[in-house]
């Protein structure tokens, strides 16, 4: 109530000072006044009423009845604006709550799906995964077993945000429940395919690439369920090639069979895995060309695998003007020389 009283005298001051000289100073003060009034949630109809009453008070003779009545129309219109304004205020509050909730959910997801990039003799591994919004629909997971071989899963759920993240948690759970001794890439994909086929919406699907790197034989065996193809970097030739892989998306047909591929990795060579958020990076001018991605990787080859993925991400983020359209995941496995 105090503010309302002081608001009235403040507004009277602004009004009289402006009517005397029409100064920009008074207009600037009015703008500051409105900020104050907004902070205290003064609705627009009250401002109109205040203005009208002050005019009557300041110009008892010249402010005609018609002029006064004209303010009734303005007042009525402003009640409508006030109606919308108060709804907007409340929606802003709700949005803030939702944002907080999403942030908490994102933290829970981090904990649930968290994986550590393993340290393996003779190998240099780097990984980065950045969600376009709060929640990540991309997923990667490393498992290092007793024989020192490393299994890696990289997956992408259709869409992004919360629905994708919920679905990802299901995949993670399904992977954890697979029996330890049956983790060949094709078996993993065929098992997950059955889980996804039974449990998700008609238009939902998941892509996944699952591979196992044998650190003794330096052989990478993998299978793909419709996932963005990986790349192989040949250090002696300084050349990239696509890792061949064919296989249907998870969740389309429960009888889908997957084929296993093998790639022998030479010293200094790299396996590069990614989600389509990398290849589908878009700038104002269009899609980022594959060549751009390859030259970016080459540019940072002298760094560790983690250094490469982080710098490639930074550059692509900049090229996209810091607005990711899709979740972004990039993984590099390099055989040390």
């Amino acid at each position, binding site marked *: 109530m105090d503010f309302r009283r002081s608001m009235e005298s403040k507004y009277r001051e602004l009004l009289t000072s402006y009517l005397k000289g029409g100064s920009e100073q008074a207009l600037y003060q009015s703008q500051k006044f409105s900020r104050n009034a907004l902070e205290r949630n003064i609705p627009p109809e009250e401002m109109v009423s205040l203005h*009208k009453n002050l005019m009557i008070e300041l110009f008892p003779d010249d402010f005609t009845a018609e002029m006064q009545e004209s303010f009734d129309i303005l007042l009525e219109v402003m*009640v409508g604006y006030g109606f919308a304004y*108060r*709804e907007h205020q*409340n929606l802003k509050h709700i949005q803030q709550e939702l944002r907080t909730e999403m942030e908490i959910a994102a933290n829970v997801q981090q904990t649930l799906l968290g994986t550590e990039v393993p340290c393996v003799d003779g190998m240099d591994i780097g990984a980065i995964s950045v969600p376009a919004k709060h929640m990540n629909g991309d997923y990667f997971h490393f498992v290092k077993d007793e024989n020192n071989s490393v299994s890696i899963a990289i997956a992408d759920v259709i869409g992004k945000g919360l629905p994708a993240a919920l679905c990802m948690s299901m995949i993670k759970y399904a992977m954890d429940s697979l029996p330890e001794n049956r983790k060949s890439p094709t078996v993993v994909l065929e098992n997950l395919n059955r889980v996804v086929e039974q449990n998700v919406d008609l238009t939902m699907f998941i892509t996944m690439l699952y591979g196992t790197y044998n650190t003794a034989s330096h052989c990478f065996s993998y299978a793909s369920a419709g996932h963005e193809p990986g790349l192989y970097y040949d250090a002696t030739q300084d050349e990239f090639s696509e890792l061949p892989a064919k296989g249907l998306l998870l969740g389309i047909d429960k009888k889908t069979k997957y084929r296993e591929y093998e790639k022998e990795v030479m010293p200094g060579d790299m396996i590069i895995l990614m989600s389509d958020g990398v290849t589908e990076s878009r700038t104002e001018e269009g899609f980022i060309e594959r060549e751009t991605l390859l030259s970016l990787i080459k540019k940072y080859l002298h760094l560790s695998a983690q250094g490469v993925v982080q710098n490639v991400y930074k550059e692509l983020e900049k090229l996209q003007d810091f607005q990711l359209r899709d979740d972004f995941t990039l993984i590099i496995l390099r055989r040390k020389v």
Partner: protein
Amino acid sequence: MDNQSCVKIINEWDIVSARQLGRNVAKELGFGTVDQARITTAISELARNIFLYAGQGQICIEKMYESGKVGLRIISIDKGPGISDIRQVMEDGYSTSGGLGAGLPGVKRLMDEFMIDSNPGEGTDIQATKWLR
């Protein structure tokens, strides 16, 4: 009852009559122009809901005298389809999708007290009160 008068809402013009009734009573009780405009806006919203979604019903305006306080109560009654999820229509943002109950959170904010009772298939009763300060 002498303290209560009603307007049947059947077509759009009845919304104007309901507003007029509300404004007259509000003036008589001594509400200022801003509150008059808020009360009539609330009446408009409630009457529009009846007209658009319930088909027909009525708006009653009641003068309230309670422990020294003076107030105006809008009573909106219809025998329309009713609202199955009251919690949902009382949420902001729902009104933007239109439909039954649109604008009710706004009405609640314009008034001091608000009460709603609705059963699917039976209709909706709403009471909204503004007290004179």
